[in-house]
């Protein structure tokens, strides 16, 4: 049931992707190129935050794969 809700939400985002109002041209991407507009965020900071939350909460991940584990208590 929860998987179905998740799939619907993901498809909704995919649907939005398909119909953007007016395609952004290459020379209009100056703002998008700024570092704060990068979806991922700075690697060191993201790694620190992810590690802290993974060792204090049950939920983990979602943004990347292959980070490896640790015995954090």
């Amino acid at each position, binding site marked *: 049931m929860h998987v179905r809700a998740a799939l619907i939400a993901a498809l909704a985002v995919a649907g939005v992707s398909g119909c*953007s109002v007016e395609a*952004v041209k290459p020379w209009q991407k100056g703002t998008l190129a700024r570092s704060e507009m990068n979806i991922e965020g700075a690697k*060191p*900071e993201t790694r620190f935050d992810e590690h802290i939350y993974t060792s204090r909460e049950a939920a983990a991940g979602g943004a990347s*794969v*292959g980070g*490896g584990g640790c015995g954090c208590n």
Partner: protein
Amino acid sequence: MQLKAGRDGDDRNDSAGRAILMAALALPGLIGVAGAAHADSAPEQGSISLNYLDYRDWQPGLDRIKVHTPAIDVLAPVAGVWAVQASLVSDIISGASPRYHTAISGASSMSDHRVAEDVGLTRYFPQGTINAGFAHSGENDYQSRAFSFGGSLSTEDKNTTGHAGIGVSNDTINPVNQVVNDAKKHTLELMLGVTQILTQNDIVQADLGHVIEQGYLSDPYKFLDNRPDERSRNTLLLRWNHHFEGSDGTGRFSYRYYTDTWEIRAHTFAFEYVQPFSQGWTVTPSARYYTQSAASFYFDPDYDPNYGPPVPLGYVFGSVSSPDQRLSAFGAATLGLKVEKAVARDVQISFKFEQYEQRCDWRLFGSGSPGLAPLYARVLQLGIVKTW
């Protein structure tokens, strides 16, 4: 009307004219083709980043874990189509952890040193990328090795990008109390996502993740901690960055939905606002709210009157159970502030302060697990980045 005969000119003029024509042809969108589709390119600059984390958590009456972590990250573009990235992290951990629930007496004290390295390689193609990575983490009671592989594909106009990734980890657990010996844990991670540029000021991304863990998943330092030997997790992560033209600031929003086969469901809402100021200063306040339900086998601190803590009422010896606070139902909030300053054209320093609090009655969508003390944490991060 008089015509002058042509003469052999010098090379400079010949190549000058050609250079102008070539430069004109290189301007995007002049030849009647819809916007020049230029290659997805490797980063133009390399960078080296030094960071330091200072973490401390506590609950009323007990200072818990302290962590000091220096880290170094390097990113280097190679030959215009490759990027190499490597990092080294050294966690120095010390302190005490409750052996069950938030019980102060009998908390186990420890000190440990964890070193983790990872390397990654990305190859850039005109319409996509391929990447591979390796990560290793080692401490006295835990070793982990992980491999990852992934790629991305973009549409012609680069406004839509799909990406996928797979990760495999093998961990070996050898707790100092020898509760188990050479226990193994295997993890398979799968990820699928799409990034969409909506406007000049908006970019969104959706990621679906599926993780399967098998092997020894329990915490050997906690009493009566006997978890199932398998766990599947699903995540849906939605992120949106919006640039505000008026203030020149950027809002970064994210929502993550998490569910797993231990019956834990969690929601994470995070927001930060990046505001640049003059002279190279940037201030970023941030807020995060997290809520989770308890694992199906988590038990509350209702102890059996005969056996006493940590044995719960009606306990069947050998059954699946855990008194771990991290598997209880609770809500948590973080407030943070980051200040960055560009000190030279290619050097930036940053300082981030965060305060975290976890309480059972902050849970949303249900009641929190009773009988647990709140958890507080204070995080400081210092960083310096140099690009070249």
